[in-house]
C-alpha cells in the first residue's frame, strides 16, 4: 500500500502528461492534462511550506537547547515572524498588513532583503579576484587555452578592454563574438545541452515507470 499507490500515481500522472502531447487539446486526455498541470502548482506549492517549517523547527530547537550561536537564532525567528505574520493578516484591517505595496511585508523585502541578497552575491567578485591570483594556473595546455580565452573575453566585454582590442587590425570584437562565442562556445554548449537533455529525459522516464524511487525516502 505504501509503495504501490505512489508508484501508480506517478505512472498515471506522467502517462497522461506524455500521451496528451500527441492528441488534440480538446479531448478528454487534453482536459485531464490541463487539470493535472494546474494540480502540480497547487500540491507542489505546499512543498514550500515544508522548507519553511523545517527551518523554523531547526532554529527553534537550536534556541531551546542553547546550541552554538543560539542568540543569533532568536533573531532569525523574530525576522520570520516579523515578516510572516503581518503578511498573513487581511489588508482590510490596515494597509500595513497583507503583501501589497505599502505593507510591512513589501517594505521589509524592498529595503532589507533585496539589498542584503544583492550584497551576499557581490562578495563573489572578491573570491574570484583572490583565486585568480593564488589558484588559477596555466598548469596544462588545456588550462592555458582556457585562461587565454577567458582573458580575451574579459577584455572584450568591458569598454576599456574593447577599445584596446580595437587597436589591433581587423575587427577583433566581432571576430570574438562570431567565432568564439557564436562558434566554438555555441557548439560545445549545444553538445552539453543535448547530453544534459538526454540525462534529464532518462531520469524523468525512470521516475514515471517507478524505477527511480529516490523521492520515496527510507522505509
Amino acid at each position, binding site marked *: 500500500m505504501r509503495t504501490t499507490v505512489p508508484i501508480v500515481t506517478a505512472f*498515471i500522472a506522467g502517462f497522461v502528461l*506524455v500521451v496528451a502531447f500527441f492528441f*488534440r487539446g480538446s479531448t478528454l486526455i487534453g482536459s*485531464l492534462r490541463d487539470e493535472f498541470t494546474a494540480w502540480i502548482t497547487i500540491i507542489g506549492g505546499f512543498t514550500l511550506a515544508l522548507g519553511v517549517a523545517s527551518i523554523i523547527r531547526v532554529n527553534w530547537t537550536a534556541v531551546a537547547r542553547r546550541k552554538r550561536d543560539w542568540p543569533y537564532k532568536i533573531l532569525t525567528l523574530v525576522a520570520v515572524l516579523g515578516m510572516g505574520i503581518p503578511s498573513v493578516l487581511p489588508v482590510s484591517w490596515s494597509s500595513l498588513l497583507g503583501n501589497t505595496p505599502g505593507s510591512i511585508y513589501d517594505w521589509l523585502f524592498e529595503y532589507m532583503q533585496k539589498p542584503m541578497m544583492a550584497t551576499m552575491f557581490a562578495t563573489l567578485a572578491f573570491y*574570484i579576484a583572490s583565486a585568480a591570483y593564488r*589558484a*588559477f594556473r596555466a598548469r596544462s595546455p588545456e588550462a592555458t587555452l582556457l585562461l587565454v580565452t577567458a582573458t580575451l573575453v574579459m577584455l572584450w566585454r568591458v569598454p576599456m578592454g574593447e577599445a584596446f582590442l580595437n587597436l589591433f587590425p581587423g575587427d577583433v570584437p566581432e571576430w570574438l563574438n562570431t567565432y568564439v562565442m557564436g562558434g566554438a562556445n555555441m557548439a560545445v554548449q549545444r553538445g552539453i545541452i543535448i547530453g544534459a537533455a538526454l*540525462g534529464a529525459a532518462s531520469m524523468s522516464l525512470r521516475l514515471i515507470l517507478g524505477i527511480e524511487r529516490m523521492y520515496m525516502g527510507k522505509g
Partner: protein
Amino acid sequence: MTCFRLSAVVLSLAALYPEVSWAQDQADPLFRADRINALVLVLVFSAAILLYTRWARAGKPLFLRRIPGLDAVEEAVGRATEMGRPVLFIPGIQELDDIETIAGVSILGRVAKITAQYETPLMVPVRYPLVLAASQEVVEQAYTEMGRRDSYDKDTVRYVAGEQFAFTATVNGYMMRERPAANIYMGAFFAESLLLAETGNAAGSIQIAGTARPEQLPFFIAACDYTLMGEELYAASAYLSREPVMTGGLKGQDFIKMIIVVLVIIGVVLVTFGMGDWFVHLFEEV
C-alpha cells in the same frame, strides 16, 4: 492490474468536471500527426533506456570506458600514501537528494578502498546529517571489504557546521593545519569552491574536482590538477558502482547520442550537397 482499475476511477471522476467541454476545435485532427518525429524519438529513447537497464539488472557485462579522472584520483591517493599525509574528500555541499552528491558518495567508496589498503588517513567533512550517514556507511563498507575493519576510524566522516561559508572556513582551517597531500571535491559546489581550491593550492595539495555545475567548472579546471566535467562525474560513479539503474541509463543515453551523431553527419552531408531539405524537415519541432 491495479493501475487499470485506478485509471478507470480517475477517468470516471474526470467526467464529473462541468468545465470539461469537448466541443472546442473539433476541426483539428484528433491525433497530432505533425509530432510523429517526437513520438519516434520518445519511443526509441525509452526502449534504449529500459533495455539497457534490464540488461544491467540481469548482470550482462556492459562496457564502460575507464574515466581518466579516476586514474588521477588513485594516483593522488597513492602520492598521499608515499608522503604519509592525509587525503581530504568532500562529497559536495548539497543534501543527499541531489544527484551530484550521490555520485560524490559513490566515488568516496572507491577512495576509501585505496586509503584502507594503504592505511592512509582520510578526512571527509560533510554538511548534512543524511550525507553524514551515507558517507559513513560507504567508508565502513570499503574498509570491511579490504579486510581493514579494525583500522576504520569512526570520525573519518565528520559533520561540520551547516552554513555554507562557516563550513568552508572550518575545512580551510583543517587544510592549513593538516596539509593533506590530496584534496578531492566530488559533487555539487557553489561560490565556496573558489575558497577551497585556493586554500588547497596554498597548502600545496594535489586537487581533483568533479561537478556538474556549469558555472563552477571553469574555475575548478583553472584551479585544480584534474577536473571531471559534468556527465563524467556520473559516468565515473556508474563505472565504480556498476549500479544497474545508473549504468543502464548511461548506456541508453550513449546509444541515443551515437544515433544523433550519425543523423547529424548524414544531415550535414546531404545539406552540403544541396539535397538535404527533406531530411532536415524531418526534425522540425511543431
